[in-house]
C-alpha cells in the first residue's frame, strides 16, 4: 500500500472495529503520541485500543481531509463518540503520520482535551 492507502486503511479499520488489521498497519517499533499519551511498539498500540473501548463504547473517527507529501501524511479528522454514561463527544482534530517500509512508524494526534474533560464530567 502507498502512504495514502495506508492512511485510508487506518480509518477504515478503526471505524469497522477490525483492530488486528488496524494494528498491523503499524511498524513493530512504532511510536504513537495520542494527546501526549505515548505508546511504544505495536503490542502497546494494540492494547491502547482497549482503553479507548472501555471509556468510549461508541467510537468513530471520520477522515475529513488528507495531505500526503513523500513518506509523511497529515489528516483532519473528527471523533464522534459516546461515553459509558451516554454523553456525546465530538472533537475535530488532526493526526500526523510517518510511514516507512509500508508501515506507520510514528503518529501524533492533536485534539482539544477540553472536549474530553467535558464529556467525562
Amino acid at each position, binding site marked *: 500500500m502507498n502512504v495514502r492507502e495506508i492512511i485510508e486503511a487506518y480509518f477504515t479499520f478503526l471505524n469497522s472495529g477490525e483492530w488486528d488489521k488496524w494494528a498491523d498497519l503499524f511498524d513493530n517499533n512504532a511510536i504513537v503520541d495520542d494527546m501526549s499519551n505515548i505508546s511504544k511498539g505495536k503490542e502497546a498500540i494494540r492494547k491502547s485500543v482497549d482503553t479507548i473501548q472501555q471509556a468510549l463504547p461508541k467510537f468513530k473517527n471520520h477522515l475529513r*481531509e488528507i*495531505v*500526503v*507529501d513523500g513518506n509523511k501524511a497529515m489528516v*483532519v479528522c473528527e471523533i464522534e463518540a459516546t461515553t459509558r454514561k451516554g454523553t456525546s463527544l465530538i472533537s475535530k482534530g488532526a493526526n*500526523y503520520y510517518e510511514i516507512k517500509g509500508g508501515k506507520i512508524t510514528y503518529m501524533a494526534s*492533536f485534539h*482539544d*482535551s477540553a472536549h474530553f474533560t467535558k464529556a467525562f464530567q
Partner: protein
Amino acid sequence: MMNTREVIETYFYVVNMGNWDKWVTLFDDDIVMDEQLAGHLEGIETLRGAVDGLKKGYSKFINRPLEVLVEGEKAMVLWHIDAANAKGVPIDAKGVNFFIVRNGKISYMANFHDSVPFKPFTDQNLS
C-alpha cells in the same frame, strides 16, 4: 504569485517577525477560518479586527513549523508555539494547521491543538 508552499513559508516567517499586519495580507478577502480558540471567523475585516487582540495579548509569539506537508492547494503544518501572554506568563504547545491556498491567498485555515496550554492568553484581562 506565490505557490502553496511559498504562502505557508511566508505565513510562518511574518508570524515570527511579529508582523501581524503583513500576516493579514496573506488571506483572501473571503477567508473562512476555524480557529481553535476564537471559533469560526469569516471575512478579512473580521480577521483584521482580531489582530489587535493578538498584538495586545501576546508579549512573545514564536510559532516554529516542525513539518510542512503540501499537496496541491492544500497544506498541513505541525508546529510548536513558544509564547507568553501580555504579562509574560509562558505558553508552550504543539498543534497542527490546515490550509487551503487558492490564487496565492489562504482561502481557508483551521488549527487543532489543546486549548489548556493557552489559558494564560485566553483567561487574561486586557482591559
